[in-house]
């Protein structure tokens, strides 16, 4: 809508609300807004009426009452005497745990498969294609159920690991023992443990803080060294070799801390009828994690493949012509361009994985939906409050993930003039 300087502004008439494009947009917006508001108020009115008929009021008091149910796997201390709010928190942490671990492992699987699918090896490329197509075209629910069936039907009972000549043997250097009820994995022990800071009922080990601090310092040192190397290169044209200093900065303090605290793995050992010493992971968690990893990994593999193919061959040839070595060509020319294509769909895969973790319902894993939207909802009968709260939490979770990934995306995006 261009205002022509020469055109006289005619006086406003009511009909201009419909026939003049300048005012018509206002009319349309007002009408739509009023209609939507009417619709919303109709919904709210119905809800209030229905609640009144059932004699219910909207209140979140139930969150502070005793939950009275157990959760098999928990990251923070919890027992059935705790409140529904704490049960919800445990569920949320379980969701986060499976989502974060799933994102990491799915990315690893996806990158490996995506690269191998482009391999010049005919057999491997075909195998990876079959994997990707099978997992992409069959519902996730089926994979969850199949892996669950493998764990419950095929895996041996803990008892089978007993005796001189056991029917089953542990895998991965006698570290992991999958059974039909749980998967026994090693736990981390310290022979010289530092103290613990207690925050309420939770505790954070000083060892954890020490590791984080050391890694953070190493990262700052890494940044500084890189900037210094860049400066020297800009001035003299020679880039000093820094990789071994950087490697040492990361590795040596970590090794020292590990030695100092006496960190070691405690393998699971069969005591009585069950494994002890190690950690017994709930099979529901393992199944969900594996299924999400394999399913999302197939999608990420396609994204990675598309990203690599999107960088035209001329780019790497040009980099070679400039005299860049293969590693630098990868890091400075190919990867930045491929990442630009890969990151946005990768974000939505991470979001999908997080949302798909609600399929925990199929294996009975107590995630956010299992606690707040499951047992708590059924016990208190507060569908409205539980559902609103649960959807709100998922919404915030997804918005946070996509905001975080968008920051990363902006840092690799093509800088346009």
């Amino acid at each position, binding site marked *: 809508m261009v205002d022509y300087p020469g055109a006289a502004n005619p006086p406003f008439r009511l009909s201009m609300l419909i026939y003049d494009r300048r005012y018509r947009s206002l009319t349309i917006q007002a009408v*739509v807004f009023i209609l939507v508001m009417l619709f919303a108020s109709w919904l709210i009115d119905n809800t209030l009426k229905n609640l009144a008929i059932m004699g219910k009021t909207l209140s979140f008091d139930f969150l502070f009452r005793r939950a009275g149910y157990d959760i098999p796997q928990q990251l923070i201390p919890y027992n059935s005497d705790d409140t529904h709010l704490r049960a919800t928190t445990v569920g949320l942490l379980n969701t986060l745990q499976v989502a974060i671990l799933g994102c990491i492992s799915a990315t690893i699987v996806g990158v490996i498969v995506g690269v191998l699918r482009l391999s010049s090896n005919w057999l491997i490329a075909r195998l990876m294609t079959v994997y990707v197509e099978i997992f992409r075209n069959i519902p996730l629910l089926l994979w969850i159920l199949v892996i669950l069936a493998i764990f419950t039907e095929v895996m041996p009972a803990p008892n089978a690991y007993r005796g001189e000549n056991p029917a089953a043997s542990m895998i991965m250097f006698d570290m992991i023992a999958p059974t039909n009820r749980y998967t026994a994995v090693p736990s981390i022990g310290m022979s010289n443990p530092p103290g613990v800071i207690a925050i309420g009922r939770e505790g954070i080990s000083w060892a954890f803080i020490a590791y984080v601090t050391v890694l953070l310092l190493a990262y700052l040192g890494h940044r500084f060294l890189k900037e210094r190397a860049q400066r020297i290169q800009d001035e003299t044209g020679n880039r000093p070799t820094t990789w071994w200093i950087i490697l040492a900065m990361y590795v040596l303090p970590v090794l020292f801390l590990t030695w100092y605290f006496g960190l070691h793995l405690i393998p699971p050992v069969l005591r009585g009828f069950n494994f002890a010493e190690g950690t017994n992971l709930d099979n529901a968690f393992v199944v969900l994690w594996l299924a999400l990893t394999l399913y999302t990994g197939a999608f990420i593999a396609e994204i990675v493949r598309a990203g690599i193919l999107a960088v035209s061959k001329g780019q790497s040839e040009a980099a070679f012509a400039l005299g860049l070595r293969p590693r630098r060509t990868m890091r400075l020319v190919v990867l930045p361009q491929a990442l630009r294509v890969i990151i946005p769909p990768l974000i939505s895969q991470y979001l999908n994985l997080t949302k798909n973790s609600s399929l925990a319902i199929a294996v009975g894993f107590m995630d956010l939906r299992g606690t707040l939207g499951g047992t708590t909802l059924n016990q208190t009968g507060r569908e409205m409050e539980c559902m609103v709260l649960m959807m709100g939490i998922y919404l915030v979770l997804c918005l946070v993930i996509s905001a975080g990934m968008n920051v990363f995306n902006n840092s690799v995006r093509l800088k346009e003039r």
Partner: protein
Amino acid sequence: MSNPDPRSVAFVRKTMLPPEPPPARASGAVLWLRENLFSGPLNILLTLIGLGILWLIFSTLWPWLSNSVWNAESMADCRKIIAAAHGPDASGACFAIIKHRWNQFVFGFYPSDLYWRPVLAFGTLFLALAPVLFADSPKARRIVTGLAVALTFVISAVLGATVVELGGMAILMLAWVYLIETRTGPVVLASLIYPFFAVWLLWGGTIWEPAMALAGFVLGFVVWRALSAYGMFAFAAAVVVAAFWWLALSDIVSRGIATVLPMRLAPVSSDQFGGFVLSITIGVSGIALSLPLGVILALARRSDLPIIKIMAVIFIEFIRGVPLITLLFVASLLLNYFLPPGTNFDIILRVIIMVTLFASAYMAEVIRGGLAALPKGQYEAADALGLDYWKAQRLIILPQALKISIPGIVSTFIGMFKDTTLVVFVGLFDPLKAMSDTIRASFEWKGAYWEPYIFVGSIFFILCFGMSRYSMYLERRLKRDHR
């Protein structure tokens, strides 16, 4: 150089030698193997690993598959047969469960003498879609329609449709095919009528209910055309008239006509739906409804009008931020709160609404990507031609934007179709979990885990893989430029 004297040379070749075949190492299978499997140490290692994986899969699955039993009455029967044939320790697949209960996986609890109805609805779906899907490839269209007609007829006959029903089906489908082949205009009308016809076939009851619902659309369209001189008013009036028809009149009229001329099919209630009939019903209606809704949402999100844009953004981001399961729970637990007290409507319809809303938000984002990818010159050219907003969208922008977004649209469809299995969690009988569990709950098929999953999984794979292949075909066909 001078030519040597022919007499002083012992031998001069008079004819050309035939070309030698290339060395064995540089041709044929050997060359292929060397280049593709054994070109270097890393590649040799990869090949060996690949062969190892293949061997692992083969050695686990082959004995189980080769011992499979197709004729048995129960799981125990199967085990007995396998033990008798291959020794007591052998394990084998018991595909007898599929042979015995395939109808439940496909039709759920649909009355078995009415199986021809879902079959006909599914077969005519292809007749309705063929003119759209294969618009400029008559050969592909003829193959698809021919196969659809023949298979529908044969399958219905095998499943025990009566002669009268078969005759009716034959007349209907052949007339439709004739229409497709001769009249390209009216055939679109037939495709538009199809959804109402399919609803009637699947749920049964009198034909006048879906017919009167259709009449509302026709009425609205007539009003819109009659008043088209008045622009926006025409559309508003059409909506009001159609809404009035549906809310106040259609019920009375359909009941009135039904007493005179019933045209009834035996009614089938929603809780008898299950298996792939349920999945495909939800999937197809979700696909058909979410595409137009997604287009509208995408246009709203790119609109210049701030209020409309904000509302579209809120809707899309909300839907995309919550898992489908929570929306399905809203459909089963909360929808009754939002409606006037005392209303209660069909659970399948509720699920379809939620699945549609869910898919349309994703669809909107895909189409928005297509709209954004279109060069700005296209928008400016449409403005320069003096087209108004809707004409510009319809004639210039959307055809190109939708073409760009085909891969995304189809993968949204595939995702939605796979997600129809989640309806098990609100108590509907999806083929994957609910049906398998139901069948496993019977005494004779206790303990059958793998066979149902393999069966249902392969059908899902065929349908989804087919859709993705079709999208590739469509992309190739529509690729007129940007080569």
